[in-house]
C-alpha cells in the first residue's frame, strides 16, 4: 500500500466521522513496527455509534451491535437518507482485507476482517463511540 492509498483511506474514515457521528472530535494515532515493516493506525470518535444510527431508523430491529456494524460495511448500506452514500466503509473493507487487517468497534459491536477472518463479536461493555484500526504491511 503506498502513501496515497493510506491517505485516501484515512480521509474515507474521517469523512465518515464527519457525516455520521455528529462528533467534533477525531483521534488518530499510529505506530510503525520497523522490524515487521508494519504500520498500525487507529482512528476514533466519541459520537453517535453505528448501531445507534441504525436503531434511530429501524427502532424495531433486534439485531446485535456487531451485526449492525458488519452490515454497515456492505455495499450501498448507509444510515443517511440519500441515494448517493454507503460506500466509505465498504471500500475500506474491500481494500484492507487484501492488504492487512481491519477492526471496527462501535458501541459493543466489534468486527474483524482480514484475508482469512470475517468475525463478529459483541462485547460486554460499550465503547463510547467508534474506533477503526487498520494494520498492514508497507511495501
Amino acid at each position, binding site marked *: 500500500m503506498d502513501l496515497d*492509498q493510506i491517505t485516501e483511506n484515512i480521509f474515507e474514515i474521517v469523512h465518515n466521522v464527519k457525516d455520521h457521528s455528529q462528533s467534533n472530535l477525531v483521534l488518530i494515532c499510529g505506530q510503525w513496527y520497523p522490524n515487521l515493516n508494519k504500520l498500525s493506525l487507529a482512528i476514533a470518535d466519541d459520537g453517535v455509534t453505528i448501531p445507534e444510527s441504525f436503531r434511530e431508523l429501524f427502532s424495531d430491529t433486534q439485531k446485535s451491535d456487531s451485526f449492525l456494524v458488519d452490515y454497515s460495511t456492505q455495499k450501498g448500506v448507509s444510515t443517511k437518507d440519500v441515494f*448517493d452514500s*454507503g*460506500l466509505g466503509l465498504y471500500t475500506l473493507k474491500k481494500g484492507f482485507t487484501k492488504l492487512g487487517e481491519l477492526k471496527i468497534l462501535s458501541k459493543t459491536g466489534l468486527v474483524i476482517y482480514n484475508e482469512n477472518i470475517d468475525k463478529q463479536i459483541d462485547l460486554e461493555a460499550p465503547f463510547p463511540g467508534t474506533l477503526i484500526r487498520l494494520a498492514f504491511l508497507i511495501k
Partner: protein
Amino acid sequence: MSENIKVKDIIETSLAVSSDKAKKLSEVLTTKINKKEDVVLDFSEIRTVTTAFLNVGVGRVYGENKDAFKKHVSVNPSTITELQKSKYDLVLENSSAKRSGEYLEKMNEVLLNGNKN
C-alpha cells in the same frame, strides 16, 4: 468538440475529499449537461479521492439523469489512477442501484427479519 475539465482547477485543491468541494464539480457538470455540451473529466494532480466526494460530485448528477450523463461526460483514463477509477465506477453503479427502489425494501427486510445474504 469536448471540453477538458480539470477537477483540480474547479475544487482548487489536490484533495478531492469533501462534499462541499464536490458540489462545485456537480454544478459544473449539471450546467454542461443541461447545455448538451460534452466534457472530459481530467483528474491529473488529484492525489486523493473519497467516495464521499464522488457521491456528490458525479454520483448524484449521474443518478438524476443517467442517459445524459453517459452521453456527455467521460473521464480521461490517462489522468486517473486505477484505485480512483474503481471508486468512480463504483459510485456510478451505486447511484443507479440505489435509485432502483429495491434498496430501502431490502434494508428493511435485513434489519427487521432476515440475514445479510
